[in-house]
C-alpha cells in the first residue's frame, strides 16, 4: 500500500467522491425500480448499477486501484471464474432438461 501521509490525504478526497457516487447510485437504483421496466430487463438494470457501485467500493475503499500485489489479482480472477460457473451452470442445467421435464411436476 501507498505509504506517505500526502498519499493518504489525497485518498481522502477520493473517499468523499465515492461516497457521493454511491449515494447517487442508491437513489438511481430506487428510481429505476419505480419506472417498472419489464421483467428480465429490470434485473439487468439493477445489476448493472449494483456492479458499478460495487466496483467503486472495491477499487477505492478496498484500495484495489492502488494494489499492485499480483496474488490478489490472480485470486480475484479465479474467484470470478468459479463464481460465474456457480451462477450459470446450475440454471442452465435446468433449462437443458427435455421439454417435458421442465417444471411439470409429478401431478397433472
Amino acid at each position, binding site marked *: 500500500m501507498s505509504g506517505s501521509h500526502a498519499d493518504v490525504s489525497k485518498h481522502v478526497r477520493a473517499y468523499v467522491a465515492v461516497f457521493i457516487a454511491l449515494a447517487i447510485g*442508491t437513489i438511481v437504483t430506487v428510481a429505476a425500480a419505480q419506472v417498472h421496466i419489464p421483467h428480465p430487463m429490470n434485473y439487468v438494470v439493477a445489476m448493472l448499477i449494483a456492479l458499478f457501485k460495487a466496483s467503486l*467500493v472495491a477499487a477505492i475503499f478496498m484500495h484495489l486501484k492502488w494494489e499492485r*500485489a499480483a496474488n490478489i489479482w490472480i485470486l480475484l480472477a479465479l474467484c470470478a471464474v468459479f463464481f460465474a460457473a456457480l*451462477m450459470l451452470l446450475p440454471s442452465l442445467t*435446468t433449462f437443458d432438461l427435455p421439454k417435458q421435464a421442465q417444471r411439470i411436476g409429478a401431478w397433472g
Partner: protein
Amino acid sequence: MSTQTLPYTVHPHPVTGIYSGKFGTWLFLASEVMLFGALFSSYVLLRVGAPEAPSPLHWPSHEETHLSWRIGGFNTLVLIVSSVTMVMAWASLKMGDFSKGRRYLWLTFLLALTFIVVKLSLEYVPKLRGGYVPAKSTFFSLYYTLTGLHGLHVIGGMVVIGYFLGPGAALWKRDPEYYTNRIECTGLYWHFVDLVWIFLFPVLYLM
C-alpha cells in the same frame, strides 16, 4: 518478547508486495464470495424456475412482499456511510492520528449498530409477527437466509471493531503500524459486507 517472530506480519513481503494479514484477509474474502455466490445462485435458480403469476407459487411482486424500500434504502445509506467512516479511520491512523481514528471507528460501530437495530425492530419483528415467516414462500426463505447471513456478518464485524476499540487498542502503543494494518484488514472485510448489501438491496427490496 521473543527474538524471532514470523516475518511479514507487519511489513510487506518484498516479492508479493503485501503483508500476510492482508493476503489472508483477501483469501478469506474470496471464500466469502463463493459463500454468497452459492446463495445468489440459489436465488437465480429458484427465481427462473418459479411459475407464472396465477400459480400460488409465483414469485411475489415487490408490492406483495411488503418490504419497504425506504427502510432498505435507509440501511443502504447507513452501510455506505459506515464504509466511509471505516476507511477514514484507517486513513487517520495511517497519518498517525490515533484519537481521530478512534472516533471514526466508534462511528462505524454505531452505524453498524443502527443497521442491526433498524433491521430487527423495523423489519424482522414486524414481518415475523405479520406472518411473513421464512416458510411462507421461496422468496421469504431466501430473504431471511440472505439477510440473516449478512446480518451475522455485520455483527461479526462489530465484534472485531469492538475488539480494536477495546482490548485490541493496546497494540497501537506497541506497534502503531501493525495496529493500522489490522484496521485495514478489518476495513477490507467491512467493505465487503457493504458490497454484498449493495447487491442484496435491489434484489430483495426492489424487484
